[in-house]
């Protein structure tokens, strides 16, 4: 089967791939492009572990077809750090130990980045509601919220 030819931009790089019409963007990222940062938790848009940003919108890549990325701009966790320089959110997740098993972490980081870009000074409640589409079954969320608050302060000062 020939598949669908897609030209897109991922983390600023022009990327071309062939995918099946029913293949999700998550599967394309992980299985065809080797970008395994986005995780498949539920595959039905409930857990947020596969979160990516498409044309400035936070989405679950498991609910996007690979074919839909044609002409779009996709941002994944792999584009978050600049070389060895971690994004403030990544740094603060480490400092606050805001992860245990780490499966949910890329999704939380992408969702938190999107949140802070739209609302640089969120209240705790806004953070908790803003990240409600991301499930963590280890930490109980508190450390994640603290890390996001701390990162927001650092980013405002920068």
């Amino acid at each position: 089967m020939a598949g669908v030819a897609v030209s897109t931009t991922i983390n600023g790089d022009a990327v071309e791939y062939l995918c099946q019409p029913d293949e999700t963007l998550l599967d394309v990222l992980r299985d065809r492009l080797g970008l395994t940062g986005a995780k498949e938790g539920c595959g039905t848009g409930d857990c947020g572990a596969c979160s990516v940003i498409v044309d400035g919108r936070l989405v679950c890549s498991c609910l996007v077809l690979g074919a839909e990325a044609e002409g779009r701009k996709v941002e994944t966790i792999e584009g978050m750090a600049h070389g060895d320089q971690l994004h403030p959110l990544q740094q603060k997740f480490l400092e606050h130990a805001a992860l245990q098993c780490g499966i949910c972490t890329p999704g939380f980081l992408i969702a938190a980045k999107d949140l802070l870009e739209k609302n640089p000074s969120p209240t705790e409640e806004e953070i908790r509601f803003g990240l409600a589409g991301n499930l963590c079954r280890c930490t109980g969320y508190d450390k994640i919220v603290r890390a996001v608050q701390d990162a927001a302060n650092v980013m405002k000062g920068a």
Partner: protein
Amino acid sequence: MRYIRPLSIEDAVGELAKAVGPAAILAGGSDLLVRMKGGFIEPELIVDIKAIGGLADITETADGFRIGAAVPCAVLGENKALRKAWPGVVEAANLIGSKQVQGRCTITGNLCNASPAADSVPALAAAGARAVVAGPSGKRTIAVEAVPTGPGRTSLAKGEIIEAILLDKRPDHAGDAYLRFIPRTEMDIAVVSAGVNLTLDEKGAIKTARVALGAAAPTVLLVEEAGQVLVGSKLDEATLERLAKICSGACRPIDDKRGTIEFRRKVAGVLAQRAATTAYKRAGGK
């Protein structure tokens, strides 16, 4: 399976009309991809409607608002004019799913998925919203409550696509509101819900009223009698009592693990009262 992204509504309609096997329309995909993954639908053709001109836009016209079928719910929440005119519709649309889902899901998809518990549908029905349907024999405009015919079923014929939802321009002293009951704070499906849309006269008495209930019957319930009982009142306690009684009586809910029939009946009345009170305040009533 074939994936296509037509540039015109005519092409999309044409492809759907001549499709031999099961075909699906893709806008946000937040229901479609889940159903495909679960094996509930195996389309041979997917028609992505997002590249069709105008379908991704909200336009304000002399008559009101035209919300394209591919507009994500998050964009509704970011549109100040729409939020000001129809706060109940927007709050209902913004209750659907997480931030991630909001970036994709659409009110047209919510309507066509035809879940009895769809959040935006009671608010749209109360608002008197209409759906513009494009099909092989041209276009027609129908009331949104005429779209769902049962859980997962719609009145749309083969080849038909809803291309936009229309909301009227608001007169002065108008307000709407939507409330749902869920056992959590968010990320849940309505156990029962209510949308209320009111306009007031200069003295603050209710001039027109529409009340719709969700998850209370196989399809959205537009309770005309509930609207009528509000007309002429200023939402005094006796009127609110009657409103609740009518709404509870109109329910034909199911009994399931999320709520019993008795619970849904009772809460439908309470939510209608509260939504009416909020809509009344938003309309400037005191």
